């Protein structure tokens, strides 16, 4: 394994560079995945059948908490990568931990929100609108859940093995994933919630 010290740790080997490019292409596929879900959402948004519309069920308080928490977590994962580049493992771990914690808060609020939807009569089977709403939100939520476990396993590995080209590479790729989930949330916030509340 040739290590090029002129590059940041996460880019320092050939395999590392390949991993990062591969992950960007994966994000390309993810954009298509969420793009398709949004296309389906826009098609089905007014097809509410006998069920409620978005304006009937959306609540502003959990939405603001979710948005605030997730956007902050995107900032803290950025700080974690910055600390990693400075070689400060302890600071990096702290920011990583905060990120995952914020992710957990987001997820809890989302579960609470789903529960609320269910209780106001917007279940998965109610109408085409509720089905696509819950599927789109659920797909994002499933990504966050997966990210929590993934991030946790990276934290454990960095703690055990220190900052090596390999762990740095994994951490960096995780940060790309986490930022991406944030971008998707911005679209969900704007085009599902805000548009629905208007």
């Amino acid at each position, binding site marked *: *394994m040739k290590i090029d010290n002129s590059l940041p740790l996460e880019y320092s080997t*050939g395999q590392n*560079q*390949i991993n990062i*490019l*591969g992950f960007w*292409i*994966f994000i*390309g*596929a*993810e954009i*298509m*995945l969420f*793009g*398709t*879900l949004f296309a*389906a959402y826009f*098609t*089905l948004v007014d*097809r*509410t*059948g*006998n*069920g409620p519309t978005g304006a009937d069920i959306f609540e502003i308080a959990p939405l603001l908490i979710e948005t605030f928490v997730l956007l902050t977590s995107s900032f803290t994962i950025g700080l974690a990568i910055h600390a990693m580049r400075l070689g400060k493992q302890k600071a990096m771990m702290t920011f990583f931990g905060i990120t995952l914690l914020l992710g957990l808060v987001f997820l809890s609020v989302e579960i609470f929100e789903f529960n609320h939807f269910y209780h106001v009569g917007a279940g*998965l*089977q*109610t*109408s*085409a*609108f509720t*089905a*696509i709403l819950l*599927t789109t939100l659920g797909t994002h939520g499933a990504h966050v859940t997966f990210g929590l*476990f*993934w991030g946790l*396993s*990276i934290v*454990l*590995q960095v703690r055990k093995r220190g900052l090596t080209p390999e762990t740095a590479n*994994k951490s960096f790729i995780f940060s790309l994933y986490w930022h991406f989930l944030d971008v998707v949330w911005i679209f969900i916030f704007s085009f599902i919630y805000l548009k629905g509340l208007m």
Partner: protein
Amino acid sequence: MDYFDRFAVPHPSPAIYVSMVAIGLTVIAIIAGLTYFKKWGYLWREWLTTVDHKRIGIMYLISALLMLFRGGADAIMMRAQLAVPENTLLDAQHYNEIFTTHGIVMIIFMAMPFIMAFMNFVVPLQIGARDVAFPRLNALSFWLFFMGAMLLNISFVVGGSPDAGWTSYFPLAGNEFSESVGTNYYMLALQIAGLGTLMTGINFITTILKMRAPGMTLMKMPMFTWSALVTNAIIVFAFPVLTVALLMGTMDRLFATNFFTTANGGMDMLWANFFWVWGHPEVYILILPAFGIYSEIISTFSRRNLYGYKSMVGSMVIISLLSFLVWTHHFFTMGQGALTNSIFSITTMAIAVPTGVKIFNWLFTLWKGKIVITTPMLYSLLFIPIFTIGGVTGVMLGMSAADYQYHNTMFLVAHFHMVIIPGVVFAMLAALHYYWPKMFGFKLNEKIGKVGAWVISMSTLLAFMPMFFSGLDGQARRMYTYSESTGFGFLNMLSFIGAIGFAIGFCLIVYNIYYSTRYASRDISSDPWDARSLEWATHSPVPEYNFAITPQVNSAEAFWDAKKHGHELFTGEYEKIHMPNNSGVPFIMGCIFFAWGFSFIFGMWIPVIISTIGIFACMALRSFEKDHGRYISVNEIKKTETSRGA
């Protein structure tokens, strides 16, 4: 016993019971054979755990040939049923199941793995790489495809076969009209195989962008590698659409949601749109690598460089973009209105332009070339006229006003078989003959090969030309019988004879493999066709590390330059080579995915949860594992190279 009732076949027939027994006996025979010859260890060490792109390619190839026979058997049954009017060989339900699985098997589980086989085997060699970017992911891709294929193939003996057409349009594919678990099989098997294909897409784009030999700029890549790059880009952008569509379809069927139903706001046409937003690019995923193969073969056997390299690349890129803009032409008759239909008519016909450019480039490559007619070349030469018939009828179908006459008739069936068979199947058979010596170290018999090529191409014409006429006369596709007064009998009998011809042609290919394995000379050079690109610069069969020394590239035909113009391909000393370790995890993960899919299909939620945990456990295992691969020492390389006569 009620619990097991769900696994019963809803529409049993003697043929299905015979198949059950045959499958059972085959499984027993395979297990007994492996045990008797003590091959379990060999199978596990050399194949099931391999991450070598060449072996994975060969496994794709074997799967594709197996599936070709499954899909072929379906085709023969269909043609036999339609050979005479009012035939009672198959009933309506059985016929529905057969045309459905014929379509799925041939496209997803025959044509796709055939292409993957050559992409896996050839692309890393053509770019001078040791393996793909993510070898273990590549193994996982294969096992996901394979398990998806197995899942679909057991459907007709466990629980019932899918029967709503390979397009599975809703509401027909919904619970109301498709009560059996057949369509669940469709949703889950395609989902699992599709995930594998998506990973292949990511893997090969990264490989081609990052792992080319020094000196090989993008515009110096061999044409097959270019076609693989464009194809994989289409895969990465098209397959997620299928993923979402299948997810929604699965939820409609198993969780009673209302995406595609006709009640509570559901929209059945949304499925048709999503299916074809994936489905039309899928057609180009099949055809572009085939075009790449033809480019390699035609230039090799014309002894000329490929005419119009840049326009070849440009037309592939244009085709890939247009492929996403034509999906509505699959349902012109379903009421989008004149403006939408006109726009999609124009984009559809526009695809004929870059495709025509490619056809003319091949003709100009042949022009004044020293043409050598070998089996691969014969397939390529037969491809051009037959494919053009299919292509031109495609332009006819693309005219939305005229499509009201052609839609859902045998004319359409004739069209897409006349493009897919000469386009994809001929290309894959050509590639089979062309790359066989590189894969196994001996050539397939040329005489049997050429007879096979003639039999298959003439059968194509015999089987599908009559359908153009019966289709224009109004014979609808997917009808299991017709009355004598329609007068379709004679044309359908011709098609049936063509189908028998196909069967004979494919038997010839199998016989050729058997014959050549026994009798062909092993004493051939590593470059038996006098070819032009890097894959012929290493030994046959290829050593595990592909190239002892990484080749230096100066043009799109580096190997030809090395042979004829004194270009130095291999400079420098042997160095130790880094290779990835084998792993059983992809295979095990594939098996868990099979269990996951199977229990999902039958709504058995506890096994679903257990296997989901199993899948994530495999991923966690991979994450925590320390696997830095291994090194092949200089001594070992020297020994291998000397034994191969370097």
